[in-house]
């Protein structure tokens, strides 16, 4: 077996560029996973820096965790795709070589072992490089985010989670092996004869066309269904999430089925158009798009996926932040409710984290002065801070509040809107002892409905409560109605929600409070909402930045396919040179092809990404938050908000593709045409 190992090494070294690319792909996958973990840990460590405040901050982490996991998953996905692409290309590229080995009597098992050993070597080295690259990348990202988000979200440099590092290493290794499995199987099945023939430019397969028709029908049915009966209107948790995933899956499935044919169609339709503008180059470009279907589809798909992810994520974050989160506060803002307390939320979390817990809670004297200051002009609802896993809206560390039934009812519709039950029916339940007002998401997770008992665990023990209402509350917070709210927490009230009476001068009221109780800050909810919207857009930018890594991975993948496409056709390109094509004309053929693929990929990705936003909004709706949203308008305005990113993708994808083509093009053009032609 020694000779076989030698063969592996030789083949890896002989195809240095491609080996490096594949290695880079594997390393990038591992590195980004580790880097994202470091960012997550740094955010966590920053938030938990102050152990006392940690409980309060748990909720903040709940915002980040799903998003970080999502970004990590996306990057892993892109990396997986890239690695697969690299191996598939490497095997396709070496068909002849493999065929020759087969004719010389290499068994299938030997070919199999050869290719898998190759994958193993690349996987091992790639994982190692990825580990160090990831630690470095993570450090850079944390420092970058500290610079950008410093005031709003505290970050403190932290090592990645051991489990994440382990995951990254195992994944990149198994990724390399699994990615090689499929191409290796293909190579194994090659008959020696078939392998020795030059790869033919097969016409579009009938099957592909049939699949595309199916895809089109699927897309039309799905969108038609969403228009006629938007599931977001009726779906309830826990069904909402799986249903959304299913709808997104159908949409993406339709997209995957349609893409190859769309790419081919652009090539065919484009031929006449291109031929008119530039008889030689244009024709060749469009012809090259139509053949090598696998290669073209892979390139287009890679670029489309990258654009899809950044577009879709922008739409997704926009919807969650603006339509779901901010909408829950609309009642507070409309009724001019404002917040009074020791912490000033609008200054960002960093400030808060530098305080001690008891300094954040109001004392009795302050509460008294506050109540006296607004007497007759506003009602005061004191909120105690509760961390209860059962009541947590996101994850299990999201905060809830406890207050007296009267205080909660004073706040009323500004804070909470029933979708099941109403204030009248809730009142007796709220007054009999402990009752909770929760969102549909929380109700579904506990499997309870109005009138059901629910055991609530909290800082001070546990209490049996009754579900008094299901509906939407500000920020999704669950509210506990109890005559003794302080029994749920060992501290004083964290904040007061002040609801002015009709026609009161809110600014004067706030000024009066600040004058009467100098320790307290007041913030209108509109100020709070603005701050929140700022965080949302910063988050989007931050995630988009991370997703640029996905674009980078896509770019690497395109270098690979372009390399392959150029090497595959080097005889043709040399022939072009021989019959009088200048270097720049040959570059134009390669670049034109790349640009066209990039454009198709970018457009397809943009459309698919905007579609994902629409499908998500219309299917998921606001029911988990207890919101009744106008779904289609929400879908369209979020799609519109993501349009900028989509357009960026449409412009960036061809540029990336052309950039990726530059490397192989330069390589081929540097060579003498005749060396290539003679090389047969």
């Amino acid at each position, binding site marked *: 077996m020694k000779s076989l190992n030698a063969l592996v090494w030789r083949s890896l070294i002989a195809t240095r560029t491609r080996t490096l690319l594949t290695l880079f792909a594997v390393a990038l996958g591992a590195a980004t996973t580790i880097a994202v973990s470091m960012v997550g840990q740094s955010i966590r460590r920053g938030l938990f820096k102050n152990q006392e405040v940690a409980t309060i901050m748990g909720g903040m982490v709940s915002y980040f965790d799903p998003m970080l996991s999502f970004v990590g998953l996306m990057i892993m996905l892109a990396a997986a795709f890239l690695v697969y692409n690299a191996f598939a290309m490497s095997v396709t590229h070496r068909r002849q070589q493999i065929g020759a080995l087969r004719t010389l009597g290499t068994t299938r098992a030997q070919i199999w072992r050869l290719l898998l050993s190759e994958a193993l070597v690349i996987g091992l080295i790639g994982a190692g490089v990825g580990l160090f690259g990831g630690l470095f990348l993570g450090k850079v990202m944390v420092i970058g985010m500290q610079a950008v988000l410093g005031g709003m979200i505290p970050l403190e440099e932290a090592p990645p989670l051991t489990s994440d590092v382990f995951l990254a290493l195992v994944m990149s290794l198994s990724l390399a092996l699994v990615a090689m499995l499929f191409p290796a199987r293909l190579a194994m099945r090659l008959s020696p004869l078939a392998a020795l023939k030059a790869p033919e430019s097969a016409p579009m397969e009938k099957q592909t066309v049939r699949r595309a028709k199916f895809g089109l029908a699927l897309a039309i049915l799905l969108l038609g269904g969403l228009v006629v009966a938007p599931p977001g209107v009726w779906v309830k948790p826990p069904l909402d999430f799986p249903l959304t995933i299913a709808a997104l899956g159908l949409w993406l499935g339709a997209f995957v089925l349609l893409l190859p044919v769309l790419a081919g169609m652009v090539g065919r339709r484009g031929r006449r158009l291109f031929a008119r503008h530039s008889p030689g180059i244009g024709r060749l470009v469009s012809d090259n798009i139509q053949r090598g279907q696998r290669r073209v589809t892979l390139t287009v798909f890679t670029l489309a996926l990258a654009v899809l992810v950044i577009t879709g994520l922008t739409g997704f974050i926009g919807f969650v932040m603006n339509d779901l989160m901010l909408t829950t506060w609309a009642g507070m803002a409309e009724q001019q409710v404002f917040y009074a307390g020791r912490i000033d939320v609008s200054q960002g979390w960093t400030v808060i984290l530098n305080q001690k817990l008891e300094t954040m809670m109001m004392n009795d004297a302050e509460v008294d002065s506050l109540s006296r200051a607004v007497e007759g002009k506003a009602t005061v609802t004191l909120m105690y801070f509760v961390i209860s896993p059962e009541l947590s809206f996101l994850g299990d560390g999201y905060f809830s509040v406890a207050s007296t039934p009267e205080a909660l009812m004073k706040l009323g519709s500004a804070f909470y809107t029933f979708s099941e039950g109403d204030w009248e029916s809730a009142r007796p339940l709220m007054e009999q002892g402990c009752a909770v007002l929760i969102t549909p998401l929380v109700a579904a997770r506990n499997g309870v409905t109005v009138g059901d008992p629910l055991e609530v665990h909290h800082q001070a023990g546990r209490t049996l409560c009754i579900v008094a209402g299901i509906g939407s509350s500000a920020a999704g917070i669950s509210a506990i109605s109890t005559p003794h709210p302080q029994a749920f927490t060992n501290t004083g009230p964290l904040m007061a929600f002040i609801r002015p009476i009709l026609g009161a001068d809110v600014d004067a009221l706030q000024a009066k409070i600040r004058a009467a109780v100098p320790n307290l800050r007041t913030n209108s909810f509109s100020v709070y909402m603005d701050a929140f919207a700022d965080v949302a857009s910063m988050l989007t930018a931050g995630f988009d930045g991370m997703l640029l890594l996905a674009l980078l991975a896509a770019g690497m993948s395109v270098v690979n396919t372009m390399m392959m496409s150029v090497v595959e056709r080097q005889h043709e390109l040399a022939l*072009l040179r021989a019959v009088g*094509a200048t270097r720049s004309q040959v570059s134009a053929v390669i670049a034109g092809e790349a640009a066209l693929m990039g454009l198709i990929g970018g457009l397809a990705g943009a459309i698919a990404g905007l579609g994902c936003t629409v499908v998500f909004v219309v299917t998921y709706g606001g029911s988990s938050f207890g919101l009744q949203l106008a779904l289609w308008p929400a879908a369209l305005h979020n799609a519109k908000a993501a349009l900028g990113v989509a357009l960026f993708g449409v412009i960036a994808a061809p540029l990336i593709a052309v950039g990726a083509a530059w490397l192989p093009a330069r390589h081929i053009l540097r060579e003498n045409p005749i060396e290539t*032609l*003679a090389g047969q």
Partner: protein
Amino acid sequence: MTPMPTLLRTHELCKQYRLGEVTVDALRGVNLVVMRGQFVAIMGPSGSGKSTLMHLLGGLDFATSGEITLGEHTLTSLNDDALTLLRRRQIGFVFQFFNLLPTLTAAENVALPLMLDGRDPDAYRAWIDDLLALVGLADRRDHRPHQLSGGEQQRAAVARALVMEPQLVLADEPTGNLDRASGEGILRALRRACDEKQQTIVMVTHDRHAAAFADRVIFFQDGRIMRDLDLSGQAQKRSTQEITAVTTELGF
């Protein structure tokens, strides 16, 4: 007989290939003068430098030393773009293998140099049809290479080599891969280009019958010209005999 003007001249043409430590002397001082309108065949054993010479004559590769002049141009002093233009407009090529672009039809392949020259191929339709008729492919104009036989592909390549009406046509074993009948079609097309349009043909061949179509046969060995045989005005059968005599003498 009136002396024909010179079209192509090489002076002490040398080409070395460097393969790591080893250098291969593919051409060792070739001095050659080809007249306008002449059909020259080049024969010689494998590895004697015939292809290398063709590549240099066609400006596809650069000489190590020596000089090539084509008409008023000194090839050895032109840069890549100038060489490319010269190749496009003044030189036609036919190779042994892989002559056509697989995605283009026969007519489009023939029109390729026109298209590369930025001309509208539709304006040259009649001319392209004439050329396809000349090589016997009138009814194959819209076929793609994979729908054509090897001989047909090669004839399309000849038509393409002639489309720009180049002064010089270089053919490297154009019939090497074909049966006798297909080969003859190609040789006749080249002969006609030479007779009717005063185009100059330089053709490498291993086949004595093919060489007998030429006006002159140059015998090559070890990168040098060994013999220069004038066949002008001779009957084909006689030519074949003379060629056979020389090859036997040189031990090819």
